[in-house]
C-alpha cells in the first residue's frame, strides 16, 4: 500500500512535470502548424531558427547583463526575424506548387543555421539564465517548478494572443484566407507574399519564445537539442491535426506528459519508442489528428 | 445496360442525389441535363465509384457495381472524362494515352510483365489511332500541359477511349468550346457511338445535347423531373420551369 501510494505520487509528479514542459512542444507545434496551414509546406529550419533566436538573446544577456525578460523579448524578436529570412530565402522564390524544393531549401537552411551556431560557440553548451531558479515549491510529496509554471503561463498567453490575431484582426483574416484559397485571396487583393512572410514571422516569434523557454527550463543552450525538438514538434503537429492550433497545444501538453510517464515506468531507452507508437496509434485511428481538419494539400 | 436504382447521395444535410432512377440502353447516347447543383456530376462520380452512394445500387450488364473501386469499374468498361480537365500535365501526350491501356482485352492479350515494361507493335498501332482520333499525331512527344485548351479536351477524350470502354461518361465536354469545336465534338461522339460505345453526356450546351442524344434525363435537386427524347424534353414545362427558375436566381 505504501509503495502503491508512493508510485501514484511519483507518476502523477512525472506526468505533471511533463505536461508543463509540454507547453514548449506545443509552441513549436503551433509554429509548424501555422506555416503548414498558411502554405501547406513543411519548414524544417523552424526549430533551428528558434534556437538561433535564443542564442542571440543569450548573447545580449552576456554582454549587457540584461534582465531575463529582455532576453526573452530579444530571442522572440530575433527568431521572428529569422522566420522572415527563412521565408525569403527558402520559400519566397520557389514556385508555390513545388513543395519538394521548398522542403529541401529549408533543410539546407537548417544545416546552415546549425553550423553558424556551432561556428559562433564552438558547439560548446552555453549557460542560459534560468527564470526563478529557486522557485521550487514543495507541496506535500509533490514538487512544482515555478519556472515551468511560468513557461506554461507564457505558452498559454502567447497562444491566446495568437488566436486573437488570427481570428479578430484583418491580418489574421488575410492569413486564413490565403490558407484556404490562395488564388481567391490574391484576387481579393491580398498580397500573398506579404501575408506569408508575416505568418512566418509570427511563427518565428512563437518559436523564439519556445526556444528561450526551453533553454531557460534546461538552463543550457546547445545545438544538440535542435533535432529532437524538430522531431517532437512535428509529431505534436500531426497528433494535434494539421493546421489546428488548439490541437497543437493539447497534443503538445499530452505528448509531454505521455513521454515523462513512460520515462518513469519504462525508462529512457524506450521512452521515444512509446511516443512514436502513440503517433502510429493516432495515424491508424484518427489520421487527421485530434482536431481533424481535412487539408488535402501535400 | 446500365441501371441506376433509387440512388441517393447525401453530403451532410445536402441531398445531391435523391432516389434517382435511370436506365441507359446499349448503344444509346444518353443526355443528362439540369441546372448547376442538380447532381449531374455527383451522378457520374457515383457511377464510376468515386462516391459511395448513401442509398441505392448501380448495375452494369446485370451485375452490381456497388463496392467496386474506380479502377475495377473501368475494367468492366466504364470510362469517364472530367468537367475540369484532368490530364497528367507532366507526361507527354503519348504517355497519357499509354497509361490508359488498362482494359480487360489488354490484360488478356498481353502478359502483365509485357504490359508494364514492353511496347509492342499493337500498342504503338492503337496509340497511333488514338492520336489520329484526337488529331494530335504531330504532338505525341509534347507535354500534355503544353497543349491548348481544345487539344487538352480532345486528349482527355482520347485517353478515356483508349481504355476501350463500353460505357463512356462525358462530364460537360463542350464547356468553353466555340461553335466549330462543338460541331467537331458532335461528330466525334457520333463516331464513338458507331464503334458501339454507349455514352452518357452531361452538358449545358443545349445545341450539342439536343443534336446528338437519343434520350435525355433532366435532373433538378437530385431527382429526375423528366425523361424522353429531345423533342419531348424541349416541350416539357417542368424542364423550362426548372431552367427559368434557375436562371432567375442566377
Amino acid at each position, binding site marked *: 500500500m505504501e509503495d502503491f501510494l508512493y508510485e501514484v505520487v*511519483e507518476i502523477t*509528479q*512525472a506526468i505533471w*512535470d*511533463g505536461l508543463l*514542459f509540454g507547453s*514548449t512542444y506545443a509552441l513549436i507545434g503551433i509554429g509548424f502548424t501555422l506555416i503548414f496551414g498558411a502554405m501547406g509546406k513543411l519548414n524544417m529550419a523552424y526549430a533551428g531558427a528558434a534556437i538561433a533566436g535564443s542564442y542571440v538573446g543569450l548573447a545580449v544577456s552576456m554582454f549587457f547583463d540584461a534582465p531575463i525578460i529582455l532576453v526573452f523579448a530579444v530571442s522572440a524578436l530575433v527568431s521572428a526575424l529569422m522566420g522572415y529570412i527563412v521565408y525569403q530565402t527558402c520559400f519566397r522564390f520557389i514556385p508555390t506548387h513545388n513543395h519538394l524544393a521548398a522542403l529541401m531549401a529549408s533543410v539546407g537552411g537548417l544545416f546552415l543555421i546549425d*553550423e553558424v551556431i*556551432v*561556428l559562433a560557440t*564552438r*558547439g*560548446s*553548451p*552555453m*549557460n542560459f539564465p*534560468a527564470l526563478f*531558479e*529557486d522557485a*521550487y515549491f514543495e507541496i506535500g510529496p509533490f*514538487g512544482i*517548478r515555478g*519556472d515551468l509554471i511560468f513557461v506554461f503561463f507564457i505558452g498559454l498567453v502567447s497562444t491566446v494572443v495568437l488566436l486573437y490575431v488570427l481570428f479578430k484582426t484583418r491580418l489574421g483574416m488575410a492569413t486564413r484566407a490565403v490558407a484556404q484559397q490562395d488564388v481567391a485571396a490574391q484576387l481579393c487583393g491580398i498580397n500573398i507574399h506579404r501575408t506569408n512572410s508575416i505568418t512566418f514571422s509570427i511563427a518565428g516569434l512563437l518559436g523564439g519564445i519556445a526556444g528561450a523557454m*526551453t533553454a531557460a*527550463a*534546461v*538552463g*543550457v543552450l*546547445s*545545438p*544538440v*537539442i535542435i*533535432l*529532437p*525538438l524538430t522531431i517532437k514538434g512535428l509529431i505534436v503537429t500531426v497528433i494535434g491535426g494539421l493546421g489546428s492550433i488548439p490541437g497543437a497545444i493539447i497534443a503538445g501538453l499530452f505528448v*509531454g506528459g505521455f513521454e*515523462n510517464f513512460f*520515462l*518513469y*515506468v*519504462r*525508462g*529512457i*531507452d*524506450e521512452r521515444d519508442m512509446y511516443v512514436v507508437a502513440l503517433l502510429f496509434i493516432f495515424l491508424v485511428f484518427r489520421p487527421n489528428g485530434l482536431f481533424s481538419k481535412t487539408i488535402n494539400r501535400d | 445496360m446500365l441501371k441506376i436504382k433509387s440512388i441517393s447521395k447525401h453530403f451532410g444535410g445536402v441531398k445531391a442525389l435523391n432516389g434517382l432512377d435511370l436506365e441507359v440502353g446499349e448503344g444509346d447516347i444518353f443526355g443528362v441535363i439540369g441546372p448547376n447543383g442538380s447532381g449531374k456530376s455527383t451522378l457520374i462520380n457515383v457511377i464510376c465509384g468515386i462516391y459511395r452512394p448513401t442509398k441505392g445500387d448501380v448495375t452494369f450488364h446485370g451485375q452490381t457495381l456497388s463496392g467496386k473501386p474506380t479502377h475495377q469499374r473501368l475494367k468492366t468498361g466504364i470510362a469517364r472524362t472530367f468537367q475540369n480537365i484532368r490530364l497528367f500535365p507532366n507526361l507527354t501526350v503519348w504517355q497519357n494515352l499509354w497509361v490508359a491501356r488498362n482494359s480487360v482485352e489488354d490484360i488478356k492479350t498481353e502478359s502483365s510483365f509485357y504490359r508494364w515494361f514492353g511496347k509492342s507493335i499493337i500498342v504503338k498501332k492503337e496509340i497511333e489511332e488514338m492520336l489520329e482520333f484526337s488529331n494530335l499525331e504531330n504532338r505525341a512527344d509534347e507535354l500534355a500541359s503544353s497543349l491548348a485548351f481544345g487539344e487538352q479536351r480532345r486528349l482527355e477524350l482520347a485517353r478515356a477511349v483508349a481504355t476501350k470502354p463500353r460505357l463512356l461518361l462525358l462530364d460537360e465536354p463542350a464547356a468553353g468550346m466555340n461553335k466549330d469545336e462543338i460541331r467537331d465534338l458532335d461528330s466525334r461522339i457520333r463516331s464513338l457511338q458507331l464503334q458501339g460505345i454507349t455514352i452518357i453526356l452531361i452538358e449545358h450546351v443545349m445545341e450539342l445535347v439536343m443534336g446528338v442524344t437519343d434520350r435525355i434525363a433532366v435532373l433538378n435537386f437530385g431527382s429526375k423531373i423528366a425523361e424522353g427524347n429531345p423533342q419531348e424534353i424541349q416541350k416539357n414545362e417542368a424542364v423550362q420551369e426548372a431552367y427559368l427558375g434557375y436562371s432567375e436566381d442566377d
Partner: protein
Amino acid sequence: MKHLSKLMGASLLLIALSIPQSAIYAGPSLKVLGWGAKSGPLKSFGVNSEAALRSAVAEINSAGGVRMGDGSMAPMEVIGYEDSACKKDEAIAILRKTASTTDAIVGMGTTCSGVCQAMFGVLQKKVEDTSDSGVQMPILADTCIRPGLAKISEWSFRNVPNEITMYDELFKWLRTAYPNVKTFTGGSETDQGHSFITYTAIIVQMAVKHGFEWVGPAVPALGPKVKQGMKELQAAAKSQHWLMGDTNYTVQARKIKKQNADMILVASHPFSACGFMKEMKRQRIKPKLLVGLTSSASQETLNGCMSAAEGIIIPTGFAPITPEAKKANSIVSKAGGFLDLHSSAAWENAYLVKRAVERAAIMGRPDTLQQDRRNFRNALASISSQKGLIGPLTRDGSTGEAEKPYVYVQVVNGKWKVIHDPNS
C-alpha cells in the same frame, strides 16, 4: 551542359585542391596529418587538438626538429588538420586519403569513439597478416577513449587515460578523503557509448569496490570487478538515465533525489551533464560529493553551468601542475585552444611521434614511405613508456591499452582546481 560540366570540373578541381600539397616545403621534412571534429557540436574537440598539435610541433621544430634515419635533423610538419565532423564516412575517407594521396608518416585523429571504431576497422588487423587487405597506416589517436578500441587493429594507437585505474584510484582516495560519504547513486546518457559504458561497466563497480554502497535501484550482482553486474545495472536503472539531446530532467533528478545518496555520479558529456546538474540544483539535491565523467573535465562544463557544477570532482589526464604542463598550457591558449584531457594528449602525441621517428630511422623519402610507415608503427609499438606533460605515459604492448598519469580536479569558484595528485 555548361552548368553541369562546370559543376563536375569544379568538384574535381576542389577535390584535387583539398589534397594537402606536401611539396611546397624545400628539403626533407617529417610529415604528419591530423583530423578531428571541426564542425558540429563537438567542434571544440577538433579545434583544441589542432591547436595543441600544431603548437607542440612548432615547439619541436624550434628545438631543432627530429633526427631522420640519415642522421640529419628535419623539421616536423603538420600537412593538414582535416574536419572529420564526427562522421564515420568522413573519417574513413580522410584516413584513406592520408594513406594513399599524402606522404604523411602517421595520421593523428580523431574525435568521437564511435568514429574511431569505424576508422580502426578499415585498418589492417594484424601487421604480419598479408591476407588482410586493410589500410596500412599508423594512427595515433588522442580522443578515442572508449574502452576496448585498441584491439581492433595493430596499426591504431591511443594516448588516452585508462579509466579503470583512474576511477579505481579515485574512489580509493575518496574513501579516505571523505570518510563520511557512504552511499552513492547516479545517472548517465545512454545514447553516448563512451559515457554509458564507462559508467555502467567501470565507475559504479569501482565505487562499490571501495566500499561505497549503491542505493539506486537494487542490483544484487553489482561490482566490485569491472563489468560485474553491468547488464543488471543497465536494466535496473533505466529511468534515471537521459539522452544527450534531452531537455527535461525532472523525472531522473527526482528519482535520484529520493535515493538520497551521499555521492552522486553524473557520467555524461557537458551538454546533458549541465542540464541534469541544473535540475539537481533546482530540486535542491545537495549531495556531499558530485563525481563526473572524464570528458566533462573541460572548458565546456564551465561555459555550460559553472554554478551548478560547483564542487564536481573529475579525474582527468591533464592539469597545469608541472612546469611543462604550465608552459604547454600557455602556448596552446595563445594559439587559440584549450589544453584539456584530450588536447593535451595531442600535444604529447607530437613528442611521441618524434621519439618513434628517431627510434625507427625514418628516411622520409617518397620511395621509402611504406617502409617508413611500417618502421614507425613498430617503433611506436615498442615504446612502452614516454614522458608526458604531467608524468610518464606507459603502454601495455600485449593489450595495446595505454596508461597515463591523472589528477583529480574539482570546480571551485567557477574554476578547475587540482585537489589531489595520486603520483605526488
